[in-house]
């Protein structure tokens, strides 16, 4: 028998769990200011995330999906994008959204059950968080196709979870991006769990990065708890796509330290020991250790940052809580470019019904 094709999957990593260097740093990371900026963003993400969970627990927010422990993925990827690129995120991408300029108030409105939270003031072309799993991969391919057809040097960046790779549309998106050589990067937040289903029950594949091979596109693994590796892998992939080099699949290995969402109780299906072992590998502490050793970070700086982030989060929470609920008429707004005449009686009936209920208290 002849070997007709052979493949290998590489993993990119720079920072070990103790913040030690495993490989020479890539260029961007030689500038401590750049790393401090990533560290600050990850810290803001974490504090925002914890506050959102607390808001849900006190009935002030709807179901929320925490990104605890996965901050390096969103921050590392979004920081490698250009403003004119398009992010096609899913629901666990708080870090990426924040970096892109989505405000915390917008995110809170979304998770609080208000469509206005998807009307981003900042990245106007970015997609809202995708909830139906894997459907966003084909959107990203469409976005990338539009960019390519118009000859624009822009890139579509799509975020997905590990469970997402089991669904047909995940592969459909990769496949078309491969054949059409689209400027698309798909990043898998491999947090090892899809609600209660561990990765080994999701796929028999040794890596998720190798799913790129069947689509004929570039694929690699990165340590998703190493923000330097995530940023570097995303940067290379995005710039290759921008230069006409085609799509890439990046598998970022991390861990979901929290429950799937606030509606979930992960103690039902995984051990505390597993979570504790994973906690020792989390991304923020390791970057802090590296920065401290490099003389670019200190306890005092940490305290200042925490205070500053807490104040920003609290300010956002105050603003969010002060937003009155949408008026009932909002149901009929933005349904079509213009409300069809046939729908006007329903709109009036809805307003009458809402008014009536208010009278009754």
């Amino acid at each position, binding site marked *: 028998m002849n070997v007709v094709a052979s493949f290998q999957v590489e993993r990119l990593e720079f920072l070990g769990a103790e913040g030690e260097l495993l490989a020479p740093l890539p260029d961007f990371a030689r500038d401590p200011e750049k790393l401090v900026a990533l560290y600050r963003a990850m810290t803001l993400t974490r504090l925002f995330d914890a506050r959102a969970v607390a808001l849900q627990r006190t009935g002030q927010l709807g179901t929320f999906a925490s990104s605890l422990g996965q901050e390096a993925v969103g921050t590392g990827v979004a920081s490698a994008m250009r403003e004119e690129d398009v992010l096609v995120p899913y629901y666990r991408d708080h870090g990426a959204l924040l970096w892109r300029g989505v405000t915390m108030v917008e995110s809170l409105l979304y998770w609080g*059950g208000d469509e206005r939270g998807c009307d981003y003031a900042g990245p106007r072309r970015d997609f809202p968080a995708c909830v139906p799993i894997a459907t966003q991969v084909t959107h990203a391919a469409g976005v990338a196709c539009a960019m390519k057809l118009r000859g624009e040097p822009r890139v579509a960046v799509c975020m997905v979870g590990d469970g997402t790779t089991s*669904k047909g549309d995940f592969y459909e998106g990769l496949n078309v991006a491969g054949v059409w050589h689209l400027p698309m990067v798909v990043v898998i937040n491999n947090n090892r769990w899809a*609600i209660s*289903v561990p990765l080994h029950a999701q796929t028999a594949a040794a890596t998720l990065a190798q799913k790129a091979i069947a689509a004929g596109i570039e694929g690699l693994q990165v340590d998703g708890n190493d923000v330097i590796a995530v940023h570097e892998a995303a940067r290379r992939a995005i710039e290759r796509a921008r230069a006409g080099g085609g799509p890439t699949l990046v598998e970022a290995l991390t861990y979901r330290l929290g429950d799937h969402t606030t509606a979930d109780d992960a103690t039902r299906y995984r051990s505390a020991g597993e979570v504790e072992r994973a906690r020792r590998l989390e991304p923020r502490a390791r970057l802090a250790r590296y920065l401290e050793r490099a003389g670019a970070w200190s306890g005092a700086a940490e305290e200042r940052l925490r205070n500053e982030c807490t104040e920003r989060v609290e300010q956002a929470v105050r603003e969010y809580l002060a937003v009155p*609920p949408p008026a009932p008429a909002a*149901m009929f707004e933005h*349904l079509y470019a213009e409300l069809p005449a046939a729908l006007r009686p329903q709109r009036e009936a809805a307003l009458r*019904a809402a008014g009536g209920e208010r009278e009754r208290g």
Partner: protein
Amino acid sequence: MAEITLVEAVNLALAHELARDPSVVLLGEDIGANGGVFRATLGLKDRFGAGRVLDTPLAEAAIAGLAVGMAAEGLKPVAEIQFTGFIYPALDQLINHASRMRHRTRGRLTCPMVLRSPCGAGIHAPEHHSESPEALIAHVPGLRMVIPSSPARAYGLLLAAIRDPDPVVFFEPTRLYRLFRQAVEDDGVALPLDACFVLRGGTDLTLVSWGAAIHETLAAAGALEDEGVSAEVIDVATLKPLDMATILESVGRTGRCVVVHEAARSAGFGAEIAAGIAESGLFSLLAPLERVTGYDVVLPYSRLEMQYLPGVARILAAARRAMKFQ
């Protein structure tokens, strides 16, 4: 007799059939160790083993397709789609295969499968977790569409769905999962899959509904009684095939009909009932038929969802309009 919730009744029926019939298998996302995100399958994997309760990868097209294959091969799969908002990849399998396997093989292969899915709004869930697409399913020839509205009906109808020789889509209203308890005996007695349930007798007006909206409908009937109006309440728990006879008989006596459903109005299942009355009961009508439904809008996120749902006030207003015609 134990008083149980609707979700516990679902669990009880699943356990009953798993124990009774070795060909019954459950499959779906998170249904094993986690017991399903609503705990409908709680404890079943422990009791019946991983060979009877299968956690699938995250893939709805595969879940439905697996069920088609298993059913054709002689198993009785009961598949769970985590929320009806995620049923759409499974529609290809339901519409193009499950519904017509018997027909296209002239009965050689069949699809005795059940596809369960939690449906409906009103629990402050995230987007895509609150829809009621029963009319989409009811439109497909060859499928049965069932929605229970009480623990006892959930138990009896799910037994019937699992035992039925054809594919049944079984929606479970999340708002009712834990709303109230009812005594349900685990006696293995199935309910018919082609008969409406008359929940309350009445002489002036017929209120027709199903799923979670039954509860606002019953509340409205109670309020109407205080106003001296006697309202009959019919639960169309089995939408397809539809027991039009029970509805026509009732409307024949009352002359007035209000149909209540959560789903959007246009081409909602209420339209089918209205058409049935127009075809076969028009001359018994004293008043125009009324529909109280969700609006023809994208189901709003949670902050507005209660404004979308047909509440008691809207049902009462429609009933009073109908009662003006004497």
